[in-house]
């Protein structure tokens, strides 16, 4: 039975590379407004939002926009398994007058945050993501909605998925789209083999 529901990982529409290729969808505002906000705050500010609401996606897109405007940039990503930045790289980037993009600032210890603020004082900017406001002025707050989840799922599936199932997933993970898509990855083989009701709209 298990082998009958096999879908190659590389064919699963919810695989990581497809999730990473999704563009950030602004529920309000736009890239242009965010860029103006950055300029206003002298490129020092925070993108704030809960898990799985698109902070990292938006940070990377903002970095691309500013790189396109010929700013030098440096992206530093923190994770549960690596909670402090490479200080030498950070110092070098600050000396080069780069705008530092820091993903996951809530993982820094208080000491690391002070050290980072000292080092980046001479950088051209510091834009970070955090789950909670307060580290730097908030540039933008990322949120999700059920409608957005439905739209992105349709985009990834290139087909429809029953709204009531999506609704319960969205509620289960309290708007964390990353977790919702992880679960859809596991559900996909069953979706594929669920018969003519959905199969005609899906590419499997």
């Amino acid at each position, binding site marked *: 039975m*298990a*082998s009958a529901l*096999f*879908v*190659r*990982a*590389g*064919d*699963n529409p*919810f*695989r*990581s*590379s497809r999730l990473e290729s999704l563009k950030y969808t602004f529920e309000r505002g736009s890239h242009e407004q965010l860029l103006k906000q950055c300029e206003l705050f002298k490129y020092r500010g925070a993108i704030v939002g809960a898990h799985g609401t698109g902070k990292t996606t938006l940070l990377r897109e903002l970095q691309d926009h500013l790189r396109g405007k010929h700013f030098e940039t440096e992206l530093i990503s923190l994770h549960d398994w690596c909670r402090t930045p490479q200080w030498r790289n950070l110092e070098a980037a600050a000396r080069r007058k780069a705008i530092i993009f820091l993903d996951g600032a809530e993982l820094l210890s208080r000491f690391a945050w002070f050290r980072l603020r000292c080092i980046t004082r001479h950088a051209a900017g510091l834009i970070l993501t955090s789950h909670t406001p307060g580290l730097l002025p908030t540039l933008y707050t990322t949120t999700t909605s059920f409608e957005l989840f439905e739209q992105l799922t349709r985009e990834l599936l290139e087909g429809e998925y029953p709204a009531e199932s999506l609704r319960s997933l969205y509620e289960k993970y309290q708007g964390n789209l990353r977790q919702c898509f*992880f679960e859809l*990855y*596991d559900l996909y*083989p069953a979706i594929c083999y669920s018969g003519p009701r959905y199969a005609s709209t899906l590419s499997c």
Partner: protein
Amino acid sequence: MNKLSISFEDGKSSYLPGEIVRGRGEWFLQEAPKELEVTLFWYTSGKGTEDVEVVDSLSHPNPGAHGEMPFSFQLPKEPYSFSGTYITLSWAVELLVHDPDDSHTEEIILSPTLNEILLHEVPKF
């Protein structure tokens, strides 16, 4: 419109470990790029963090707006092309154009059976 293509000798797309991949990359571009590169690599896709490793590459500086470039890469013994529920490992040859940037990729299979190994079909011991 830019046109990039890769063709393999004898139309092959499956290879044994250690075999040589021969073929040619062709390009027809609107403007001459600064550099052109043919790369042999493998990558993973699936649920988790994805990985990529470039195994070999050939470059062609100042290649002109159109032309062709033969390539020949010795494949390593592993990793094999395989697919499971959570990870797929694929091999590919890519024709990369730098400045202006463009690319074209063709997948190949590296396997002792000449077919992608499907993990759920591998007998358990």
